[in-house]
């Protein structure tokens, strides 16, 4: 039986990043991936002959530190330029947001936006030191750990009293309150809200953490602006894969882990390897799981090996995903009313309340009457995604319950597909004629195709009680778990989901400490 220093479960971006750091430090690392390709939710697949897409469709906070640590440039990853976020308007009077400039709104809104953006960037700066750091447990802290908390305090203090007070007031506001304080244009407000609510069970009126979420997303390199690498998301995944392999990590696909081997004796429990679904077994000094916490603890480790309070806390984690994925194979570049080129991140949400009402439908188990949608045309930056001259439209559709009232029958699926296409066609009337193929993945499909409980964007809902030293829950929040030798390194750990790499990076550092 082969022995490794570390076995990593899952070759999503976090698994690959963790593998690279560990292998670079000299460890013998094996990465095991259930599916037939690497990348996890960022993996590209052919959804229609000749047309490819990935679940994660744009990047807004991938860590440049990781990119340079792992020398991803040499492996073919070139970060993309920031792209505009475009709030679509059916009449073609679109609102375009780019850096600190916004067009398509009143002069007043445009001026307010400059101020707003400056303020938001300042506040998101306070959160920045935290992303690539393990957040210490509460209680007996070392000096270094106290310093980290101190940094946040200092960051706040350095802003001055007024800003500090304002930060404290603002950070837990519903996004809607913040938008209404600053702007008049509903399209602008709704588009800006998006990053506060995307992938969560929040809508603009939800209290407590959607502003925090926006700030969090703004800690990325372009101040939260989205981008697409020149070779597409696939180029990032490939770069991470080759970086890991060239550091010496072994990656095996189509290798689903059935269970984590946990040895028990008078010294307690210790993870000592894994067993694959095929029956093959490997031993290791430690096992790192990037599968979501419920999968890791319930399916792979088993409740037998965990304490009762802990298991029930994990069970209570909100893992209900509400984002569906639509992929359209198009015979040509779609034309959107009022847009020269659909090369931005386009958002269909005419009002903040459109987002709110879509959530209202979904939270009681219905598909939204009027879905809200975030779209990119990734084939514009990566021509390999579609045959020559043809294109892919990739869309995040909110809010779509995984557990639909009445179930996801073919009929229910078709109905949602029609609704979403109808909605897009309001802004791109000729698109219908261009559609040569389509794929709609509900959160339930994402759960079964990608092994993510609930198909949740962040593996575990990102909220105040599941942040930082509470993520995913105490006793498993510093990448270590109650089982010796078992670590977490996926999106369910701090700093959370999205293509960022924080969990994989931080877990590796925790292991190498």
């Amino acid at each position, binding site marked *: 039986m082969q022995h490794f220093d570390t076995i990593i479960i899952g070759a999503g971006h976090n698994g690959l990043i963790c593998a690279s750091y560990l292998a670079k430090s000299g460890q013998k690392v094996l990465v095991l991936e259930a599916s037939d390709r690497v990348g996890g939710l960022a993996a590209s697949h052919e959804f229609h002959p000749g047309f490819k897409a990935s679940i994660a469709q744009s990047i807004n906070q991938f860590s440049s530190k990781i990119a340079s640590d792992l020398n991803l440039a040499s492996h073919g990853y070139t970060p993309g330029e920031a792209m505009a976020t475009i709030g679509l308007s059916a009449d073609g009077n679109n609102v375009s947001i780019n850096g600190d400039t916004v067009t398509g709104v009143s002069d007043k809104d445009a001026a307010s936006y400059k101020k707003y953006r400056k303020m938001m960037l300042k506040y998101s700066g306070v959160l920045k030191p935290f992303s690539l750091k393990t957040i210490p447990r509460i209680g007996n802290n070392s000096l270094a750990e106290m310093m980290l908390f101190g940094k946040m305090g200092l960051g706040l203090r350095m802003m001055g009293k007024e800003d500090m007070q304002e930060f404290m007031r603002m950070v837990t506001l519903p996004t809607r309150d913040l938008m209404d304080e600053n702007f008049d244009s509903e399209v602008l407000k709704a588009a800006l809200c998006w990053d506060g609510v995307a992938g969560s069970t929040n809508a603009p009126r939800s209290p407590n953490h959607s502003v925090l979420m926006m700030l969090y997303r703004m800690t990325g390199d372009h101040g939260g602006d989205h981008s697409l690498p020149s070779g597409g998301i696939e180029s990032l995944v490939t770069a991470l894969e080759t970086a890991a392999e060239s550091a010496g990590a072994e990656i095996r696909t189509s290798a689903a882990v059935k269970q984590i081997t946990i040895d028990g004796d008078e010294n307690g429990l210790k993870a000592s390897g894994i067993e694959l679904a095929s029956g093959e077994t490997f031993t290791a000094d430690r096992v790192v799981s990037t599968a979501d916490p419920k999968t890791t603890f319930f399916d792979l480790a088993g*409740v037998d090996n965990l304490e009762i309070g802990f298991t029930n806390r994990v069970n209570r984690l909100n893992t209900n995903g509400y984002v569906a994925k639509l992929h359209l194979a198009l015979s040509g570049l779609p034309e959107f009313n009022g847009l020269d080129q659909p090369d931005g991140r386009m958002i269909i949400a005419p009002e903040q309340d459109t987002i709110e009402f879509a959530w209202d439908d979904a939270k009681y188990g219905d598909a939204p009457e009027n879905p809200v949608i975030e779209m990119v045309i990734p084939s514009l930056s990566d021509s390999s995604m579609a045959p020559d001259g043809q294109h892919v439209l990739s869309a995040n559709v909110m809010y779509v319950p995984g557990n639909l009232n009445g179930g996801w029958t073919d009929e229910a699926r078709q109905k949602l597909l029609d609704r979403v296409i109808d909605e897009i066609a309001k802004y791109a009337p000729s698109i219908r004629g261009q559609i040569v193929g389509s794929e709609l993945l509900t959160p339930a499909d994402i759960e079964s195709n990608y092994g993510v409980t609930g198909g949740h964007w962040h593996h575990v809902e990102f909220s105040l009680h599941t942040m930082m030293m509470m993520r995913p829950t105490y006793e498993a929040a510093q990448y270590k778990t109650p089982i010796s030798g078992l670590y977490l390194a996926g999106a369910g750990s701090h700093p959370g989901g999205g293509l960022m790499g924080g969990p994989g990076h931080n877990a590796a550092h925790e292991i190498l400490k």
Partner: protein
Amino acid sequence: MTTNQLRYPDEELRHSPFHERMVALSARDSWSAWNGYKLANNFYDGEYEYFCIRNMCGTYDVSPMQKYEITGSDAERMLDRLVTRDITKLREDRVTYVVWCTDDGRVIDDGTIFKTGPQKYMLTCGSPCIAWFRKACFGYKDVDVKDVSDTIAGLAFQGPTSYSVLKAMGLDGVETLKPFGIMNFPFKETELMVSRTGFTGDLGYELWIDAEHALDLWDALYAAGEDYGIQPFGEEALNMARMEAGFIMPYMEFAEALKTVHFEHDQTPAELGLDWLVDFKKPRFNGRAALLKEKETGPKYTLCKLDIEGNKPAEGAEIYSDKDCANQIGYVTSAMWSPVVKASIALAMIETKHKDGDLWAEVYYYKELRPYKKVAKCTLQNKPFYAPPHAKKTPPDPF
């Protein structure tokens, strides 16, 4: 509302399956409550009933106790993780005394587990615990916990003549029943389960039967026990007997961990002197990591048995390391004048690091309504105050 209508009908105490007979024998009509049922404080006099248990035999209604039936192919694994003892070693028709703890190793409750079938257990405990057991079941595929508290009647039957009464009742084979063993006997059209268990430190049994047959069982037992001095006893007598035996009582020795507010107001098994119930050879059980940590440093407090100079029961006394009572190191949890030991005895929580040093109790007592206090020397006892050899003999001594 008419004047003689009950104000809080739902709050009315319920009657246990034995109630009809107990009421008839209650001279004092003195009741308190246990899990919503009427519980006799005494029937005539607590001390008198205590002497019945020590010299003859008595019955104590344990029907209000919580009883859970745990079944399924995962029942053993679920229980083995739940409690600190090794349940895989529990054989069929055997009973074991257990505690279960929070993740932090604080005692939630103590109780007994009866293995009644290959994949079937009965767990009994003092207060409702179903919510915790449900949590403990989460993640197992085949285990079911059913609350059978209301459908199974239980009668503790304790005292030196108890064995002879069961024989007289016709329970053939009961002479082979060993401590912590279970035997089943046909009774009317049902089955009577007899376990050699109890809470008095004496020879004794617990009788379990479906609630509909409770009165029949009572009648058969009292008919057979007529010449052996059978008596019902209440909480007061039980409390005396269990103290002498060194058994702990919830809300006297320990506060159930799921109900405390302050994190140190509950106890670990070691603090309660129950470290012998914690099996660290077992790699998995709830609270293990926390208890292992405690084991390294030792428990902060230890429940101690004290023999206290003088004859005043030391209820509510504080324990000091010095006669001047300057340095408090503990407190008495239960105390009494023990008729068998002929001494003032107590259970007390004492800071572990001080328990082997000088121990002084500041004892408070009243004489004709006047409060007095005195400082009495305490001697640490390592054995139960009362553990007569006849309690463990098989077959037991006949009368």
